[in-house]
Structures are given as structure tokens and as C-alpha cells.
């Protein structure tokens, strides 16, 4: 595998993860056996993983780029 392929793969993976991150999980339809579980309080991570920082930065730059292209 070429060295230069690694950056292509990293870029593709980051874009895919960024798109999937924003997607909400599909809600299950209510059935007879459905249980209403109390929602867990999602604690904000104090120390995000390095990859999360990368996705945040990528998202910021992408938004700037979109704004530029849309005028």
C-alpha cells in the first residue's frame, strides 16, 4: 500500500465518521413489550479522545468551507 494512500484513507474515514456522528439513532417503534427506561444522563466528556478533537476541527473547517462556497 502506498504511503500516500494512508492520508486518503484517513480523510475518507474522518468524513464518514463525521457524517455518522451527527446522525441520531433510529427510534424503535412502540411494541407491546416496550419498556420505558429512564433516560441516562449523558455526561459531557471532560477529556475527549484525540479523534473527537479531529472530528470537531474537521467539522469547523467544513462549515467554513460550505459558507464560503454558498457565498
Amino acid at each position, binding site marked *: 500500500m502506498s504511503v500516500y494512500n494512508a492520508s486518503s484513507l484517513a480523510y475518507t474515514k474522518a468524513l464518514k465518521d463525521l457524517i455518522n456522528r451527527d446522525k441520531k439513532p433510529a427510534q424503535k417503534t412502540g411494541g407491546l413489550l416496550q419498556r420505558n427506561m429512564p433516560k441516562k444522563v449523558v455526561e459531557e466528556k471532560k477529556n475527549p479522545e484525540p479523534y473527537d478533537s479531529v472530528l470537531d476541527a474537521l467539522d469547523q*473547517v467544513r462549515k467554513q468551507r460550505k459558507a464560503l462556497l454558498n457565498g
Partner: protein
Amino acid sequence: MANQEGMFMAPIPGMGLTAELGSTPWQHPPQYTTVDETLEFYAPRVLNPDTKDDLLNVMEMGIPLTTIAQALQIGGVMQGKHTIDVGVLVTPVIIEMLAYVGDEAGIEYNTGLEGGKDKDAISESEIGLALQKIPEVMERTEEKMVEEEPMEEPMEMEPEEAEPMGLMARRQ
């Protein structure tokens, strides 16, 4: 033959251990250890207006953004700025920043995810580079023309008749 020469030019096994440990920047602890710090290092360099023209020329020549980003981050590793794993992590952001620079300038670029560029197409930067080289080539050609003196025409010699050398040849 060329491949054989290349084979002998390769480092011998264990050659990497002959240099003193710590003699190269990447054998020291990196200057930037986190992704955020590394991005703060790259962002002003990519968006710097002084270097932007060179960057745009390279992008216009059809060099993929992935290749440019890879070269940038490998350079950072070699300078001891960050480790290679942090470099791989920040590569997508560098590619996106390069794309932003390209869009801002309004040029067509290759991200590296598309197929290869049209080989027959010649970009404007390639034409510009060729035009820059024309005066140099013209000077060299003129110098060569001056150095080369006109050749003297050789004198026409009448072919001498070869004397018969055999046993049966008549002696005059």
C-alpha cells in the same frame, strides 16, 4: 540495469542503528503532543498568505491534496514537531484546510479521492512555468550556436588506384 543500481543504493541492514541515538529530531520528545496543539501549528502555515501562492501552484498542477497533506505532516514529524500518530490524526483536517484555500482562490484541485486527472489537460500553472523557462532555454541555445564554429568543408581527394598485389599482377 537501473534497477540493479537502485538495489545497491539501498541502505544495508542495520544501517539505521549506526547513527547515534538522539541525533535526529524525531528521536526526541515531540514539541506538540496533542492534536489541538498540532493543528494550531499547521493552521497558520497553510493559511499564510506568503506561502499560499506556492501552495496554489502545486494544487493547480494536479498534485492531490492528500499527497500535499501527507508531505506536510511527514515534514512535521521529521522536524520533531509531533509524533507520526498525531500527524496521521491531523491529516484529514489539513486536507480540509487545503481544500478551503483552493476554494477561496477559486481553482480546480484534485483531492486525491477522485480518479487521476486528465493527462492531456495542461493547467495554467504548467503553461506559466513553461513560459518562465523559455528565456533561459533561448539563452542556452544562443550560447551553443556561438560556441559551435562552422565546419570546414573537407577537400575532395581523388581516390588513388590501388596497385594490384597478387602473384599474377603485372609489374610496371
